[in-house]
């Protein structure tokens, strides 16, 4: 037999609560207790509102460029819900909902996009890394963080989030290869929202699934409806168990959709059809849970009204806190450069000058004159 089959692949797609309200009892029963589901839903509603408010802040000049998370609340939230707080979350910028679940104060995210580095000063106990701006780079850090946990004999995993576009970067492939070949417990969580700014997913991956990229590196891979929080939690539970027990990485492709523009600097009408957006609005992760909870009689209009009021308060309070933070001190961009500031930087900081005479005015003034000034 000169030709034999050496490999056959299968990629599973997981859907538990679909957009029509169909619920798979065999997979979904007991997966998320009702009281947790109510809390998760509340987080999504708050997160969505924050997005709307942030958009207005940007438009009125109170905030810089901001990437809305609208439509993508479920993937990171489901992941954060499944993880322990001691597990690492290594994110980019569409994981607000999961980070808030983890406990990141909302004003931290606002502060970051308001152009203040202190927004990245994340409480250490949250085990979350700051927003990674260079696309596709942070998965290697997740691999290192998880490696350290394994080295120390801890049962932690690292979950790293990235978009479909990020899977084109070389670093992403290196991270997958390291984790798979060195047995490092990383969950590679791709939020496939089908666009990278204006570039459609098929330019990043012409294979039928992004998930099979994980397969190519020899790791387990799963694909799920990312707007179905049950499916996300199901996949995460599997991935986390495999990481904790066997130190194996898993690739999860969560299929979702960016309902808004790429950022406030973008205008998606230039490159994508309104029809496509409408199609995905019907698959919204938030309305889906709401309908489900109503059908289970654990949610009603008065609870909704109460939640909306609470969301309003929470978001305005976060905006107030973010805007109330005293302006950053210009010395700060020097002071945090090194554990110990080199003398040359001390001089630059103290004079706010780079020119030699500016740093040492005695070169032109009499010592007496400089004492007077």
């Amino acid at each position, binding site marked *: 037999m000169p030709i034999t089959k050496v490999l056959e692949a299968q990629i599973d797609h997981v859907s538990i609560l679909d957009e029509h309200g169909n619920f798979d009892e065999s997979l979904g029963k007991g997966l998320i207790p009702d009281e947790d589901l109510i809390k998760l839903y509340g987080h999504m509603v708050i997160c969505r509102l924050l997005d709307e408010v942030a958009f207005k802040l940007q438009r009125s000049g109170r905030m810089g460029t901001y990437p809305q998370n609208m439509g993508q609340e479920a993937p990171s939230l489901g992941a954060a819900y499944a993880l322990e707080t001691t597990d690492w979350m290594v994110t980019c910028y569409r994981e607000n909902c999961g980070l808030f679940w983890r406990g990141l104060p909302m004003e931290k995210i606002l502060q970051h996009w308001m*152009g*203040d580095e202190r927004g990245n000063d994340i409480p250490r106990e949250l085990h979350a890394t700051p927003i990674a701006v260079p696309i596709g780079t942070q998965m290697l850090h997740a691999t290192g963080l998880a490696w350290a946990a394994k080295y120390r004999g801890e049962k932690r995993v690292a979950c790293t989030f990235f978009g479909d576009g990020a899977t084109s970067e070389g670093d992403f492939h290196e991270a997958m290869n390291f984790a798979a070949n060195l047995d490092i417990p990383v969950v590679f969580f791709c939020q496939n929202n089908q666009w990278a700014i204006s570039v459609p997913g098929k330019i990043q991956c012409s294979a039928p699934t992004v998930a099979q990229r994980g397969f190519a590196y020899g790791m387990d891979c799963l694909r799920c409806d990312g707007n179905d929080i049950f499916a996300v939690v199901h996949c995460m539970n599997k991935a986390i168990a495999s990481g904790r027990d066997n130190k194996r990485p898993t690739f999860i492709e969560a299929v979702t959709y960016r309902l808004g523009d790429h950022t406030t600097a973008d205008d998606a009408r230039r*490159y994508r059809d309104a029809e496509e957006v409408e199609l995905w609005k019907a698959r919204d992760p938030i309305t889906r849970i709401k309908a489900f909870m109503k059908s289970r009689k654990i949610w009603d209009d008065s609870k909704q009204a109460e939640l909306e009021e609470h969301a309003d308060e929470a978001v305005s309070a976060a905006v107030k806190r973010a805007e109330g933070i005293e302006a950053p001190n210009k010395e*700060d961009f020097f002071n945090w450069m090194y554990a110990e500031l080199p003398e040359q930087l001390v001089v630059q900081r103290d004079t706010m000058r*780079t020119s030699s*005479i*500016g740093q040492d005015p005695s070169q032109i003034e009499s010592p007496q004159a400089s004492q007077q000034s």
Partner: protein
Amino acid sequence: MANLTLVQAINLALVQEMEKDDRVLILGEDVGLNGGVFRVTDGLFKRFGGDRIVDTPLAESGIIGTSIGLAMAGLRPVPEIQFEGFLGPAYDQICSHAARMRTRTRGAFTVPLTIRVPVGGGIHAPELHSDSPEAIYAHQPGLKVVMPASPYDAKGLLISAIRDPDPVIFFEPKRIYRAFREEVPEDEYTVPIGKARVVCEGDDLTIVSWGASVVQCMQAIERSSASIELIDMRTIYPFDIDAVEESVSKTGRCVIVHEAPRTCGFGAEIATQIMERCFLQLEAPVQRVAGFDTIMPYYKLENDYLPDADRIELAIQEIGAY
């Protein structure tokens, strides 16, 4: 003649070179239908189609690496890197291959490639969207590095870059993409790579700058009563030291202004060559008004970082009093 912004002037240069030479093609992230995130390639996709205006996968090393291959095959690729902060992944391809190909093959292979990159701060952008890495690439032998400060120069220099037989990094100061307009001839013309421009003449002092900082220099000069000569380098490498020498020999005083961090900024090289060439004419130590040796801060503090007219004005006064 049309009154154009820097973005429009670059767009015009691209259109004209593409019409003239079918070896020219553009590739990068979002350069197609979207016309680039700064709209520099606006309308080109419609005009030239998807074979010549190519949206690539999100991979800078891929963009530059394949451009090197395209160029080695005799085409004239003009890749766009979306922001200077994302040159990082492409660094290896630029410095380990593009810059070395001609010399290591003794000319058997060449890389006539023009890498367009928006550069610099001052637009309230997020992190890694505001840096000034021109000296890093000027330090790599084998590359040419260009940074126009006006629409007229942008068009003429870009045409020169595209026609240049060697790899050119063409930095576009994003702060002045749309800040002002200038008469730009419809007709084809070039501005030579390696030639500085005397923006205004003067006898007391020379200011040497490039990119968006040229605008701050002009503001400071307007406020000053001294007679100041302003030189816009236009090309960082190979640089027009003759123009600098001529001016500083006349004025005896020089302030160099750039956004990049001071240490090992390109001002350091210019200052050294002034010292070597004009030692006996110098009346005062050459001054550098530059970015600080820190990470470019997020935008709330970017104006404290960037050299502005106030800091330049102080340096003018101080060097005058020396």
